[in-house]
């Protein structure tokens, strides 16, 4: 077996696009628990990727650091060596077509802010403990397609993982991820009512008497759960999954696939997108791509390889280490019509607010069946509040899309690799909720 055979389909790529993609990343981390700083981290991480974008879907990528001219040449040589003599990609010309995504200037988390935030709910001897793991990334990205100019942009991301532990009648641990473009946004979220609401929820779960059974037909999934569930549906919206018959949503353009209240839009540069990116990772400018419009499937996530399936070709992204680009989510926003219905404002009997999901998983993309063990708060017919602990919950993601009948207006974002999804808490029907 020759090298050329190994990389079947690649040789033709000598006449296809070659992309040089570079990113210089600086990152900082701070971990604070109950008002004490436990660790600081800082990292600079440069990556150079050279990829052949082939119609067969096979690409070669090499990554290096630092992202200097030498590395660009070496990655190009690596690719040339791997694909044989017919393909000799050369570094493309650099240009001046630069753009900044509009991120705020690079700024760091302030230790004092985090110390104050984590300690205000957990004074010494308290039964409430708050841990904040703050992380920030600052990217300088260059993407160059052959025979094209280099496009440059800068972007940033900040996130905080907040873990609240309460020891009362029950021991409860509630974890939430907060995402923004910079530390100011995160600090604002936490100082607003994000952290206080999280502590309050954990406290209620820890203090309310547990209920052994739940028969709620209507369930409110907290946005920290609804976003994870919706993210699991995204692979089915990828045009390559449609092409390879791995999608339950194949051949359904124009069909109803969700509740008429639901609209899903991809745009990595959206106003609410953490790590906003004006170009996708194959150098195509991003824009609003309406995937589901009031329940009707309008578009798939796509790339030039799958343009025959869906014409929108600017939704290819690399992995966190610069891996070969793949069709996926940059940033998706899910919105639901109607006024928000807050859990605490409702008068209707027998509803359940799932606040925590443990072990959330989907068996495979085709069936869409998922299950997890959920905890939260339940309202009985007589209005009594009880806590719910570790109730097995199962459902189907495609049925869930159709069963969305409201929202609570409290948005959260979930991150998977370099993909982000923002959605509110969702009122849904059709979940199987077992007893704990």
């Amino acid at each position, binding site marked *: *077996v*020759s*090298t050329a055979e190994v*990389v079947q389909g690649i040789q033709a790529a000598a006449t296809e696009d070659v992309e040089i993609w570079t990113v210089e990343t600086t990152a900082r*981390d701070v971990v604070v*628990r109950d008002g*004490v*700083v*436990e*660790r*600081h*981290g*800082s*990292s*600079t*991480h*440069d*990556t150079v990727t050279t990829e052949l974008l082939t119609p067969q879907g*096979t690409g*070669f*990528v*090499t*990554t*290096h*650091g*630092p992202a200097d001219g030498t590395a660009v040449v*070496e990655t190009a040589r*690596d690719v040339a060596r*791997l694909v044989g003599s017919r393909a000799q990609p050369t570094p493309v010309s650099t240009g001046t077509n630069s753009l900044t995504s509009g991120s705020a200037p690079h700024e760091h988390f302030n230790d004092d802010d985090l110390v104050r935030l984590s300690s205000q709910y957990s004074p010494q001897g308290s039964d409430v403990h708050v*841990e904040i*793991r703050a992380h920030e990334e600052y990217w300088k990205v260059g993407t160059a397609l052959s025979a094209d100019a280099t496009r440059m942009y800068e972007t940033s991301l900040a996130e905080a993982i907040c873990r609240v*532990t309460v020891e009362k009648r029950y*021991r*409860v*641990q509630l974890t939430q991820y907060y995402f923004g473009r910079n530390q100011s946004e995160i600090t604002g979220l936490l100082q607003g009512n994000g952290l206080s609401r999280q502590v309050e929820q954990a406290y209620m779960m820890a203090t309310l008497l547990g209920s052994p059974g739940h028969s709620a037909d209507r369930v409110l999934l907290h946005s920290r759960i609804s976003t994870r569930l919706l993210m699991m549906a995204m692979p089915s919206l990828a045009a390559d999954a449609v092409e*390879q018959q791995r999608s339950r949503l194949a051949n359904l353009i124009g069909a109803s696939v969700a509740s008429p209240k639901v609209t899903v839009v991809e745009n990595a540069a959206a106003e609410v997108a953490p790590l906003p990116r004006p170009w996708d990772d194959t150098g195509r400018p991003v824009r609003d791509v309406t995937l589901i419009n009031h329940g009707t499937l309008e578009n798939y996530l796509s790339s030039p390889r799958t343009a025959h399936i869906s014409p929108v070709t600017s939704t290819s992204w690399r*992995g966190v*280490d*610069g*891996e*070969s680009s*793949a069709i996926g989510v940059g940033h998706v926003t899910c919105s639901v019509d109607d006024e928000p219905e807050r859990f605490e404002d409702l008068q209707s009997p027998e509803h359940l607010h799932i606040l925590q999901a*443990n*072990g959330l*998983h989907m*068996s*495979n993309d*085709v*069936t869409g*069946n998922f*299950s*997890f*063990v959920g905890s939260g708060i339940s309202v009985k017919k007589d209005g009594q509040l009880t806590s719910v602990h*570790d109730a*097995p*919950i*199962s459902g189907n993601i495609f049925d869930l899309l159709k069963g969305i009948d409201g929202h609570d207006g409290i948005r959260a974002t979930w991150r998977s690799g370099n993909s982000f999804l923002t959605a509110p808490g969702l009122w849904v029907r059709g979940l*199987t909720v*077992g*007893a704990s």
Partner: protein
Amino acid sequence: MKQIRDAGAMRDFHLERARTKLSSRFSVGSIAVDRGVRIKGRWVNQRIDSLTVERISGHSIGVHGEGGLIHASSTDPTDDLVGRISDSENTDFSEVAVIEQAFSAPQLVPLSNWLRVADAAARSASPSVVQVVIDFEVTDRHLWFGQLTGTVGDDSRSLTYMILRVIASDGSSLSTGFFTPATRGGIDLLDAETCGTEAARRSLGGLGARSAPIGELPVVVSGGRGIVMLHEACCHPLEGDEVLRGSTYADQIGKPVAASGVTIVDDPLLENAVGSYSFDDEGTPARSTVVIRDGQLTGFLTDLDTAARMGCVSSGNGRSPSALHAPLPRMTNTCLLPGPHTPEELLSATPLGLYAEHVGGGEVVEATGRFTFRVTNAFMIRDGQLAEPVLETTVSGHGGQVLRDIDMIAGDVAVSAARCGKFGQKVPVGVVGPSFRVAKLLVGGYSE
């Protein structure tokens, strides 16, 4: 001008600077230099669908002081990390030239052949096999370590990790067979035909599967991969950072936490297990740690940071995916020691139960010990024998209770692998041990 010609010299250079500039402020700390090549991608539709060849390059320093751990890392070999920590960055790098040789070139032909043979073996098992998907990773890394205390060392970290998914259809139902062979070594250590055949067997065995039953059942967990359950359910709360946060085992040293006969060892010294190493990622020499001996809690897993805070010596469990990440206390190879029974005895002693052949990912809430994990390939046990297959299901419980409910352990020790995620860092972990039975676990969609 000083010339640095290899990674070992780079380690020595940074270590010398760290000792000079940081020893007065920090007594505990380590340097790591990381080099290597990683090939990863996906095989689908009988060809390589995507492929990444990654040249790994990074170095880091971590120090522990009154302000906790300070960690700095970079892919740029001339980045002055010691200066970054001591607030005197880039003071004397102008006189240094790094002329290090690149790591060896990746070899793709053996990998491609392996994938082709595994695919063919799976497809030849039955016409019902409709798709073979293999996610692959072949990594060849070398790390050089140095500690402020004087210890230096280096370690090779080869890894071959395959995730085979074979999809079968009988026209009315679909089934996916999972198999995750892996080794701390080259691809030649895994037999492609055997792996493809095994994944196909699991897939074909799942055709016609029905929903899992509901409620608490005895569960017989197969050896090897099934030890993921103990990894998730019982061992995460033994990691030093979780102990410091008051995990369920925080004050249980010396106390009974499991059924008698249960002995669990974290052992990074096993040959070819994917969690093995000679030094952890902070340069602490590897050693095995008995965490539970005959049902009694005997140890925790620590890195330099948590050991310093706990007032003990690191157990050598500081791990990170690369030098670019700050190490955390992590498991290496979680080993359940064998018991007196045969696998057949476990089944025959179970009138009605679940046989978990392949265990997928799991999750545990360390503060409470509650865990959930996926059983991706499973069968019912009826009248002491394997019966019909069941669809992928969830099994959940409380880690502490599971340890007490292990009532039979077989002697069929198998070595398998998994990937463990913690605060966004994924590392390969070995799961090693025999089949065992848990008297009851919550199985399926819901309980009555």
